[in-house]
Structures are given as C-alpha cells and as structure tokens.
C-alpha cells in the first residue's frame, strides 16, 4: 500500500521540477527582430541562419501567409511571412527585410522553415528574471505560441514559441493580441 503514495509524491515533485525547469529553460539567448513597431524574440537555438530577402517561388493552393519556397543550398524550404501569419498588414520588402531560417519540430524530426521579418536587430541574453509569464489577456486571447514577455531597456519584447507558430495554422488570437 505504500507504493502508490510514494508514486504520487514523486509525481508531484516531478511537476514542480518541470515548472521550474521551463522557467530556467526560457532563459538564454534570443534573436530579436521586429514586425512594424512590435519587437519579438525567438530562441537562438531554433535559428539556423539569417539571410537577406531573395526571390521566392510562389506555390499555388497554399495559405496566404505561405509566400512560397526558396533554395537553401540545395534544399527547398518553405517561407512564411510572419506579418501575414499574425494577420498584420502586409509590407513591401526592403533592403532590411530578412528571412530567418528556423529549425522546428515536425512529424519526422526537425524541418526548416523560413520566416520573413521586417528586420533583425540583436541577440539578447535573457536571464530567467528578465522573462515574465504571459499576462492573462482575458478569455478570448489564447497565449499558446508565446513563451513569455521580456522587458529589455524599457521595451517589451514578445518571446515566440516558434515551434508552435510554424506548425499551427490558426493564430488569429495571437494576431488580435498584436493589434
């Protein structure tokens, strides 16, 4: 009879440990970029490389935010416009527009997806204390897709869970948050 109680105790400990770990895990280096006035960050570990904007081959019958495909040194990878993904206004591509090649989890291992952003600014070193949990925006605004918020030099940066952002179609709520 002793065994089950031990189990629950250890399970409880595990949950606490996991929560603590996520907090610890969120700390680290983030690549900061912006879409219009909003500042974002994604974990550097998820970034494969950053490249200037180049010609994108459009693919028919795909969602609007999927701009098409590009050639990444012999590999064909899809490119998503993050502005459109978050239902923000479309913007002309300029010299500063970048494609961040991210490595996200797919059905079979990881896959590469490019993200078009207005520009990248810096790599931030965030400690666990810099990161706050996503505030409760009220019932309608879902916060999956967000890792949290970081306050750096008086500005708030939205930390994206890029795995979630890239692998989920419907991010309307996230878009609402940005408006």
């Amino acid at each position, binding site marked *: 009879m002793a065994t089950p109680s031990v189990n629950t105790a250890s399970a409880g400990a595990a949950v606490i440990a996991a929560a603590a770990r996520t907090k610890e895990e969120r700390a680290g280096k983030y690549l900061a970029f912006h879409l219009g006035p909003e500042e974002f960050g994604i974990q550097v570990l998820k970034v494969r490389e950053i490249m200037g904007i180049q010609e994108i081959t459009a693919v*028919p019958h795909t969602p609007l935010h999927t701009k098409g*495909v590009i050639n990444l040194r*012999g590999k064909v990878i*899809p490119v998503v416009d993050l502005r459109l993904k978050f239902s923000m206004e479309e913007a002309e591509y300029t010299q500063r527009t970048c494609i961040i090649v991210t490595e996200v989890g*797919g059905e079979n291992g990881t*896959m590469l*997806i490019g993200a078009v952003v207005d520009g990248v600014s810096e790599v931030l070193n965030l400690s666990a204390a810099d990161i706050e949990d996503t505030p409760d925006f009220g019932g309608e605004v879902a916060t999956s897709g967000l890792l949290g918020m970081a306050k750096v030099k008086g500005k708030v940066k939205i930390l994206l869970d890029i795995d979630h952002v890239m*692998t989920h179609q419907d991010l309307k709520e996230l878009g609402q948050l940005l408006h």
Partner: protein
Amino acid sequence: MDIQAEALLDQAATQLMMGEQADTVAALAALGEVMQSPEALELAAELRGLVESGWDDAEKQGRVQRGLDRLRTMLSAVDGQAVPAQSSALNQDPELVGDFVLEAREHLQTVESGLLVLEKEPSNPDVLNAVFRSFHTIKGLAGFLEFGAIQALAHEVETILDLARTGQLLMTPRLIDLTLESSDYVGQEVHRIEAQLRGEAASAPTDGTALLKRVRGVIAGEEMAASPIESKPVAVAEAAAVEATVVEATKSEVAVAAVEVGSTVKAKTRVAAADTQAIRVDTAKLDYLLDMVGEMVIAESMVRLDPELAGNKNPKLQRNLNQLRRVTEEVQKVAMATRLIPVGTLFQRVNRLVRDTSRKAGKMAEVELVGEDTQLDKTIIEELSDPIMHMVRNSIDHGIERPEERRESGKPESGTIQLKAYRQADHIQIEIADDGRGLNQAKILSKARERGVIAENAQLAESEIFQLIFEPGFSTADKVTDISGRGVGMDVVKKQIQKLRGKIDIHSTPGKGTTFYLKLPMTLAIVEGLVVGVGRERLILPIFSVHEMFRPAEGQVSTVQGRGEMVMVRNQLLPLIRLHRSLGLRARNEIPEETLLIVAETEGRRFVLMVDEFIGKQEVVIKSLGESLRNTRGIAGGAILGDGRVGLILDLAAIYSERNAKAVVLRESVLVAC
C-alpha cells in the same frame, strides 16, 4: 536467471558427471520446486525419470546432459521473454541496436537463400556452414543486446544446424520449413525492434514459445522423426534427389538441378566477396552529398555562363573552366550512382515466395533470374517489392497450371517464372514471365461487361483487353484463394508502378504464358523536365508525359457546351486546361493564338495545357517542398533551376482530375440554372 535455479542446475550437472545417481535426482527434484515455467517443470521431471530409470547407459547420460543444457537456456530464455521490450540497450545504445538490425537482416537473407539451396541439396557443407554461422552471429549479437527471445530461438536453431553440419541430422523439407519459420520469426522481431528504435509505439512481441518448443522437440528427437544418417552417403543423395524433384525424377534432371544450384552458390559467394569492399553510409549523409553536388553543378554553370567570364578570351582560363565542367559532371554522375543498388536483392526474395506459394497452391514452379546486377535506385527497388511479389503470386495462382494439366498439354510439369532486368536507353526494363496458360481474352471481356467496366458492344484491341485486368475490382479467378483472386491488387500494382513514373504492359499467348513488362526510370531523384513559363513563374513538366507542343492556329480552340474549352489536335478533340487558372497565377496572355499549347498525357488520358512560353529542357533533381507543403494540390515537388531559384514540378494527374471536378460542378450549375 534465477540464482537459486542456476545453483541447482550446476549441482545436478556436477552430480551427473560424478555419477551420483541419487544426488542428481535430488538436485533435479529441488530444481523442479524452484522453477515456475510449466515447460521447464515438465522437462525437469522427465530428466528425473530418466536418471531414476537407469544409469549405466552412456547414451542416456548424454541425453540427460543435453536436457540440462536445454533447461539452462530455457531458464535464460524465460528471463529474456519476461523483459522483451525493455532491453536496456535500446535506450542506452540505439546505434548499436541499429547496427544489429542491419546485420541481422543481412544474415537472415543469407539464411533464407541458403535454406532454399539446402532444399535441393540437403547436405551441402558450405551452405550448411554459412547458415549455421549466420544463426550463430545473430544469437551472439542478440545475447549481447539482451534480446532474449531471439537469442533463445537462434540458439536452438543453431543446434539443429550443428547436428546437420556434423552429419547427425538430415535437413528434411520439414526441418527446412521449421528453420525458415524461425528465421521469419527472428525477422519479425528485428522489424519490431527497428520500429521501437524509431520511437514508434511498441507492438506486442510475437509469441515465439510455441515455435521454440517445436524446435526443441526436434533436437530432443521427438515429434519430427529426423532421419539419422547411417553413414551411407548414397542414401543421402537418394533422399535429396527425391526431395528435390518430388516425383519420378530422372537422373538428368537431378544433374541439371545440381548444376544450377552450384552456379547460384557461386554467385552468392561472389556477392559476399563484393560486400566486404563496401561501407555502410547513412542515407541522410548521402542525400546531403547529393544536395551539395547539385549546388556545385549550379554554381559551376553560373560561373561558366557569367557574361564577364564568357567574354574573356584567355585560353588558359577557358581550358581550366572546361576542365572544371568535366570534373563537375563526373562528380555528379558518381554521386547519383551511389543511390543505385542491384535489383538482385529484390529478385532473391522471389525465390522464397515462389517456393511457398507454389506449394500452397499444389503446383510446381521454378525461378529463373536474369540480369540481377542491373542497378536501380534504392527507393524504387523498395517500392517495387510489393507489386512484383503480387504479380509473381498471380502468375503462380492463375498462370501456372497444375502438374497434371501441364503434362496433358505437353509441358514440363514444373512451370517456370522468369524475372529479367536489363537497361534500355535511359530506363530499366523488368520482365516477369510465366509459361502458364496465358490470359483468357474472352473471359476478361465477359467479366468486364458483367462488371460494367466496358460497354456491352465495345470493340477492344488485344492490348486494351489485357489492360482491363488493371481496373479496380477485377479478377477472373473462378474462386478466391488465400493467395489471390479477390481482385484487389492489379489496380494497386498499376498505381504503384505509375507512382514510380513507370509503365506496365502485358503480352500473353494462350497456352504459352504471360509476360509483364515494367518500364522504370533508373532513379526517382532526377527527372527530365520541360521548363515553361506561366506569368512570372517557371514550371516544370515531366517530359515523359509530354507528347508535343505547338502554337495554335486561329479557331483551333473552341468551347464545347457542357465540356468547357477543347482543342482540335490531329483530328482529336482534347480538353484544354489553362494552367494559370488551375494554379491561380496571372498569365501574360489570355489569347490562345499567342500562347503555347502542350499536349500531355497521364493515366492514359490526353489533354492540352496552355502556358505562356517554353524556356527549355533540363534534367532536374526532384526535391520535396518540405513537410508543410508536401501535399499541395497539383505540385509534385520542387527543383533547383540553373540560376539557383526554385521551379515547381507539376503533378499533371492532379491538375487533370481537378479540372474534371470543376467541369462536373459547372455542368451541375448549368443544370440548376435551366
């Protein structure tokens, strides 16, 4: 293993050696009390009986000794089966387990082909040794990685083979069946381990205890009366001859069989020798190499075609550039060839299939393999396995007649299935031929009418009639057997072949046999493409589905009520698809006379595609668009064009069927409007 049981076992063995009857019995009795498995209990009791019943007999002592050994493996096997999925090696050392999977597969293949040779030549020492060694290696590896079930079975089979090797046992067909069954079991387990390794949900291990028991029965000399050899090789040869040809074998036939076997064995050893000079490379690495080589080719052509360099007349530079081009081409060719493997690995499996299927169907058939060295892309060979197996099964079930029927029509009793592979221009041809009764045209026709596949009064050419067997739900077998005849299959075969961008044809002569001709590309990685421009995009059509292209004359395009736009091409009215519309692109030109029309064909249907311009012909490496875009309608993949940009490869079948779906909707809406 249980420590207590182990100690008792040791004790029993020592007492037995020292000849202490009473103590041996006591040890065995104690052993019986600590063991849980009923099987082991039974064995221990039996051994006790043996020891009690008498003692002096040396043979009996040997039997007890062997029994104890078996008890020992049984105990360790019980251990292994109690924790089959939790082999710690799976988590700790996935690489090692991966190696085990590969190696075990290779050995199982050796075992299988070896056993088929043994069937004709039961005491061939080389083959017996090879099979024995394979099982031995599997056992060793499995033991090391703690796959108890595999280890236990391999150990027992190894014992059988050892007995056969030392001439104490003859490999009768039943024994060979049992060994094959065991190798199948090991194969299944290996497959399961592989699935676990990939992180898939672990399926329950197949229960091998029944099989294990039967194998053990053989070793103990029960159940199967294994014929001991009475040191008369002549008798063995006779037995072999009877087994090989089953009925009234003439001497010459035996000789022929022996010669054939000899040659296949020789071929085996040659293959084995070639294997040692190969190294295993991760396919991901290989794919990366191919990607990089592709990039190198593009970079090279960009450099070579750079206007500034082209204008430079420096002969030394030009010479060096030419050298670079030659080397690049060579590297590309070699890199492409790394994915090619001989078709022989696939053919070997047919041997086994023919053996099993013909026996089940009560028929006799031999396999003839030609061109096993022909090379094909690994993926194609893998994807080809099911269709070929299906066709061979069909050939035996429907094609080859029963022995008595064959004798009556003056054919040899044993039918022949011939598999032939050879290279023809830029593709590979595979033929699957049987010398059976051939396809019955009348029967196919009546069946097709009955099923409503064709109209009552349709007139069809011979080749068209044969193609009917690829229609879904078509089967002419009078009765359904468990081999084939349910009419699922030939349509799947055709689909599969088409998926591999191949073609399938049939030739058949009544009473003489049927031959399937498969025409396949050498590799799936490369396709000869026609690059066309639509709007701002460049699209690639696979050239094998393009018939011709032309600029239409005025009035050649017309609208037919209810069927959309049609084009008159060589007195044939073909449907027109404006490519920009089905892909949602903006065309440069909407007037038919100023566009380019391409006549294409997929799945036997012709249609016309409208594009803006023709850009060129190019061999392109097909690439996936990645997980998220993989299933995009109308797009088969991407390819990197000469300037480094991505072009989309069209899936013409999807584009055509979508157009049809639209036409239907259109017609319905017209009806509603009326």
